[in-house]
């Protein structure tokens, strides 16, 4: 009986184990099959994803290549391109004018005899616009070339300057003051300032010039004229211009001091310098077209010997 029970116990245990293991194995097989199914699906998905990835990678490479090509072939600076498409080039700012000129490339801005310059650039330069008195109303070749002033225009401009100078001379002769003698100083001529006259005279002059050559060139010419007149005619009307004739102690000849004066600043030389034939104060040439000889004759002093020598 016990053996039977033992056998039954063993066999029952074995049967239970068998069933349990069988169930486990069956479930394992089922899971395995499900897993294998997942594996197949996943593999297929992966293949699809990898295929898509390869296609995309190729596309990205192509786009990058095209992008590099596009960037390398973009010949015009974008800001310049945008300006050219959306603006009137006549209204280009100074910076944009320079940028456009830069786009012309090496050698694109000059020829054998000429060079291209932006109009804005012409405002940053200066040059002597008029010849030295007594031809003070005559335009220099440089300004005629830079501003492209034709002979007809030049005649009109020079006529305007001549007329303006006549008015200034008339005004200066009327306003000039004479002092002296006083100590070593024989005489002092002073052309006093009159900003209102000077302003009106200049405005009238350039109004006439604008009518002859247009506002654009007239403004440039005015800039050059005003920049240079301090050294050319002492900015008559704008500054007080002074000419003094002095005896120089211990020396036989005479000397002079001259220049303009404005508030606390002046360009008058401290010590008298000798009178020389080729150095006559420009502002006073308007009053004394004959220069030192005219002054000497008027004031009754002798000029140095070098004035009588032939040049």
């Amino acid at each position, binding site marked *: 009986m016990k053996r039977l029970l033992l056998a039954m116990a063993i066999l029952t245990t074995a049967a239970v184990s068998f069933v349990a293991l069988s169930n486990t194995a069956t479930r394992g097989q089922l899971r395995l099959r499900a897993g294998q199914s997942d*594996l197949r699906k996943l593999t297929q998905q992966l293949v699809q994803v990898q295929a898509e990835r390869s296609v995309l990678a190729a596309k990205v490479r192509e786009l990058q290549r095209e*992008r590099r090509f596009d960037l390398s072939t973009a010949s015009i600076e974008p800001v310049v391109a945008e300006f050219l498409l959306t603006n009137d080039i006549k209204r280009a700012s100074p910076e944009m004018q320079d940028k456009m000129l830069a786009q012309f490339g090496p050698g694109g801005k000059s020829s054998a005899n000429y060079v291209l310059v932006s109009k804005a650039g012409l405002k940053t330069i200066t040059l002597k616009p008029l010849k030295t008195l007594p031809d003070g109303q005559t335009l220099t070749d440089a300004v005629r070339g830079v501003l492209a002033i034709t002979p007809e225009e030049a005649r009109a401009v020079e006529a305007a300057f001549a007329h303006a100078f006549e008015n200034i001379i008339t005004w200066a002769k009327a306003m000039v003051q004479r002092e002296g003698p006083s100590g070593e100083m024989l005489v002092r001529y002073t052309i006093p300032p009159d900003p209102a006259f000077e302003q009106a005279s200049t405005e009238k002059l350039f109004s006439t010039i604008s009518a002859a050559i247009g506002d654009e060139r007239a403004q440039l010419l005015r800039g050059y004229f005003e920049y240079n007149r301090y050294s050319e005619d002492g900015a008559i009307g704008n500054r007080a211009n002074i000419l003094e004739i002095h005896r120089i102690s211990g020396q036989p000849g005479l000397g002079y001091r001259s220049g303009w004066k404005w508030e606390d600043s002046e360009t008058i030389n401290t010590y008298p310098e000798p009178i020389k034939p080729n150095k006559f104060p420009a502002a006073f040439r308007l009053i004394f077209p004959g220069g030192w000889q005219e002054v000497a004759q008027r004031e009754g002093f002798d000029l140095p010997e070098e004035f009588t020598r032939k040049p």
Partner: protein
Amino acid sequence: MDEMDARHQDFELLKRFVHDGEQAAFADVLRRHLDLVFGTALRKIEDPGAAREVAQNVFIALARKAWRFAPDDSIPAWLHKTTLLESKAWLRGELRRRRREETAAQLGTTMKTPDEQPTFNALVPLLDEALLSLRETDRTALLLRYYERQSLREVGAAFGVSEDTAQKRVERALEKLSQFFQRRGFRTASVAATGAALKSTAASVPAETATAVMHSVLHASPPALTGLTASMARAAALSKAQTAAVCIAVAIVPVAWQWNRAHNAKKEMAALQVKLGELRTQQDESLAETERLRKESRRLETMAARTAATNAKQQEAARKLETLKARSRALLAADNYRWPNDVPFVRIPKSALSSITMAGGPNIPAKLEVKLRLLLDLSASEQETTGQVFSNYFSGIDRFLETSLYQTNQGMSVKPAPGADSKVFVLLPMGGKIRGALDQLCTDLSGTLGEERWAMVRPDTFEFFHYEQNRLLGYTEFAWERTQEVVVNIFTNAGEPTVSWNESSGSGSSPMPLRLFLANHATPFMGLSQGPPALMDGVTRWLTAEAAARLLTPVTK
């Protein structure tokens, strides 16, 4: 009977009877245990004739079931139990009542109970029940010892133990039997009384009864087993260990097979999971990479679209630029040139370049650099080279200033004021160095631009040198070639730190409060206008530092 294991003897005899049909072997078994069976039946039934019948039935049952016994089974125990069952069955029969009176009358002849032993007489009816309550080994020991009348040595041999051990086992069994009775109220049921009860109820089978039983049993015993029955008999004859071994052997194959299936499935699943994990990782990476590529692709497509639009604009702009260039080329080549109102460019004659200077200040190297860039059509490399030429010039001037400017406490031509904290700033002659540097600048530019273009932009040398020396050294030409000194005096005037200075050229300043030089002063000092700029810049920096040190730092003396 030798001393070999009595159990195995019974088993071997039954085995020979079952497998070989050897009736003599079964007769031996019968003879060995007939007293036990007959005695037990007689005790229950109290009728010798019926006891014989019961004994016959018990041994016939033994013969029928002989194939079921294993070597470790106790035949006496089985016989005792079977006899009791058979006896009970018999007693339940129709003859029970009729025999009861006869049995009572015969008891006095068959089971003579001494009057002097009334104690154990009371135990007899429960004796077999008591025996059945014992464990099989204890019951077998008592049955062998008392009902089969074996010596302790034989009992030991039946269990495979020594005589002393057999005695102890018998005594222990008697003790347990005695306790059985005591638990049921037999206070006098001592071990001795229990042993006497056993001894007194042992019976010897009469010879004729033994012969009759043997004859009947052998006549009714089944033939030797063959085929499946023999196999079952063999199986039934296995010991517990053998049975367990066989069962395990039988069970292990399918279980192992299933275990192997489950194990393999698990192993394959694990491998599959690893593979799935790898694939999922790969898929995640691929998806992430794909997503990144999608975004990059979209970005590039957007940029491409933008670039396409830009290209269209570029092409349109290029057409306009080309028109502009053509117009500009026409301007450069025109015989009848007029001031152009349609473009922001003009041409100027190269012959006019030398007459042009830059506005807004004297003609110095910085202005010349701007003029070159504006008026000369410089290539990129020429722009780079001329830029380097100017850079070399300015860094050279900086080096001259560093090596020519120093501070001291005692000047050559200026003297510190008595009682003042003074510092003397000295600038060694630099005019020659500056002229040399300017010469080098002009030479380098001429080499870079070529004689023709240099002639177009070359400044008036005297004016160029003059203005540059003024910029650095001041407007007193005689000072360019002399050592210049400035003594700066700081003293207290009406309780306020005050500063004054004197130059070696003779000019100087009136006293002014030091606080004017504080960096955060309401009206900051704009610099010293007199004297060489290079020298006076150093003086101003020193005064600013002194003002901060003296006026902003608490004095601890």
